[in-house]
């Protein structure tokens, strides 16, 4: 016997959660792009998508985030620190790769100086993951030691039933248990088989990759020039990545008032590291691509004990020149040694 959430009870669930003070966000297809958005009814959810084009990162580390509002007068400056709204949110139908992405970024936003903007949202959010029933050629979770039903970063794990009319429910965290309690009357105890997981073939050998990257000799390898030749430095892969966290801080306004904002930035851009003097430590696209790979599969591992990749494959799926991390890591795996 397992606990089941029948699909036809989803509207009741949403209503119960809203009554408990939560906003419910789920995959939606809006404005020509799939992403996570607030929903009122189950029919608004696009739960059949393999993966939304945009990640749930957008809702924890928004593309642009107001930090400080300021007003400048002749003798004084008024400034007010802006804080993200204290809003309890449920993210329903998160894919395991996206849920892992949040957990991967936690230590970065928390080491030493705590980024309140990130953690206030994290603490007020419940992640309800749904295991994948389909995968495409770009999915690579198994290559980074995750799986289509990984519970990493999830508070509740739902596994689709074979018939397709509901989900097995497993509470993973205390927060998840509390969430299940709010809808316990809607859950049923049943014997029902979960649908088989999709096959996600290994795309590269992450151990071999990490070993090659760790070898200092390879930092100056001409491999980096060859592999990044067609990168146009557009930054799409970083913006669509569930773990990329780099940002810029910019003031936006007129002479007398404005808002200081934290905006997404990308290691793909030349300006990212350009000194005022004109010196740029990463002055070629190849050095910037190297930084991206090194950061994800070497530096981050060294600092936080985890690779900064959850295998969603968006970087490759949506790359305008069909490049992405997968190809590079495959090539590294296959390099003669």
């Amino acid at each position, binding site marked *: 016997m397992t606990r089941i959430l029948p699909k036809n009870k989803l509207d009741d669930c949403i209503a119960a959660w809203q009554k408990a003070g939560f906003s419910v966000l789920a995959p939606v297809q809006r404005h020509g792009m799939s992403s996570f958005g607030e929903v009122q009814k189950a029919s608004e959810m696009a739960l059949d998508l393999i993966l939304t084009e945009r990640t749930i990162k957008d809702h924890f580390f928004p593309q642009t985030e107001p930090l400080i509002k*300021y007003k400048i007068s002749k003798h004084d400056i008024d400034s007010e620190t802006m804080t993200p709204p204290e809003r309890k949110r449920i993210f329903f139908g998160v894919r395991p790769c996206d849920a892992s992405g949040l957990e991967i970024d936690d230590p*970065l936003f928390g080491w030493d100086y705590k980024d309140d903007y990130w953690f206030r949202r994290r603490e007020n959010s419940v992640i309800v993951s749904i295991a994948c029933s389909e995968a495409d050629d770009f999915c690579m979770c198994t290559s980074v030691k995750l799986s289509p039903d990984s519970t990493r970063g999830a508070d509740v794990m739902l596994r689709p039933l074979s018939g397709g009319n509901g989900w097995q429910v497993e509470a993973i965290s205390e927060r998840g248990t509390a969430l299940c309690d709010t809808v316990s009357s809607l859950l049923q105890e049943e014997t029902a088989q979960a649908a088989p997981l999709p096959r996600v073939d290994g795309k590269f050998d992450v151990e071999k990759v990490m070993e090659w990257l760790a070898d200092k000799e390879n930092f100056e390898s001409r491999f980096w020039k060859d592999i990044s030749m067609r990168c146009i430095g557009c930054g799409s892969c970083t913006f669509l990545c569930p773990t990329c*966290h*780099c940002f*810029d*801080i910019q*003031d936006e306004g007129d002479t007398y008032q404005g808002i200081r904002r934290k905006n997404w930035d990308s290691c793909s851009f030349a300006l990212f590291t*350009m000194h005022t003097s004109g010196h740029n*430590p*990463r002055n070629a696209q190849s050095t910037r691509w190297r930084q991206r790979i090194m950061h994800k599969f070497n530096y981050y591992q060294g600092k936080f004990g985890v690779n900064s990749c959850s295998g969603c494959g968006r970087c490759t799926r949506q790359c305008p020149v069909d490049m992405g991390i997968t190809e590079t890591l495959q090539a590294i795996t296959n390099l003669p040694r």
Partner: protein
Amino acid sequence: MIYTPFPMRVVSKREEAPGVRTLKLEFVRQEDHEFFKANYRTGMFGLYGLFGEGESTFCVASPETRKDAIECTFRQSGRVTSMLSGVDAGDLVTFRGPYGNCFPIEQFYGKNLLFIAGGIALPPTRSVIWSCLDRREKFGRVTIVYGARTVADLVYKHELDDWKKRDDVNLVLTVDPGGETPDWTDHVGFVPTVLEQAAPSPDNTIAVLCGPPIMIKFTLISLQKLGFDQENVYTTLENRMKCGVGKCGRCNVGSVYICKEGPVFTAAEVSRMPEGDL
């Protein structure tokens, strides 16, 4: 909140060299000042800014032995530094920090000190120099080698005069060939060359080296020739920064975040970093 700066009142502004100025800043709020006093150690840096313009990263040029105000020295070069150049006494600016690691000055006790600075890199060095000179009895011989492109480009000229007069400090001043004036009586030559001529002994000596990358590169070679162990040579690195606290992801050299693990490193640590990322 993490990215919210302290308001600071400009106490004074001093012209150092063409395009180079020093601002002396006082904390507006007592609690901010207490925080600074409790946390600041020489070598740390801050983000100085103006609302509407942004923030720029430079060192705290005042020593840890003088925490009543913050001094910062910068060259007018970009948007923020241009606007900071235009402020006057009484104006408000912002400061975030102190961030980063520091010079382990207690470990220098009982040793001779050799300071080497080039151009606008005297301010970070000067912070260490005064942190030591204010506790002069704890150290052995103190040598300062300072060079700039031209006589006009030397910064902290009034303090150079002070150091010159002191008999417990050996000041070696130099300007690049062609940068001397008719009344210039000190050295003419590049810092590494002048350093090798001065030939300070590496015995029981700590070297602190700050300057533009090219100067650091050649001075490290000279220090090696003079017999200095890389573990006894300290330097500071800089990179573009936005957050200052290890999150915005741009200031790393290899795996090392300059903002958190630096900006102070030994030459040995720098030598282990990938050169292609510097």
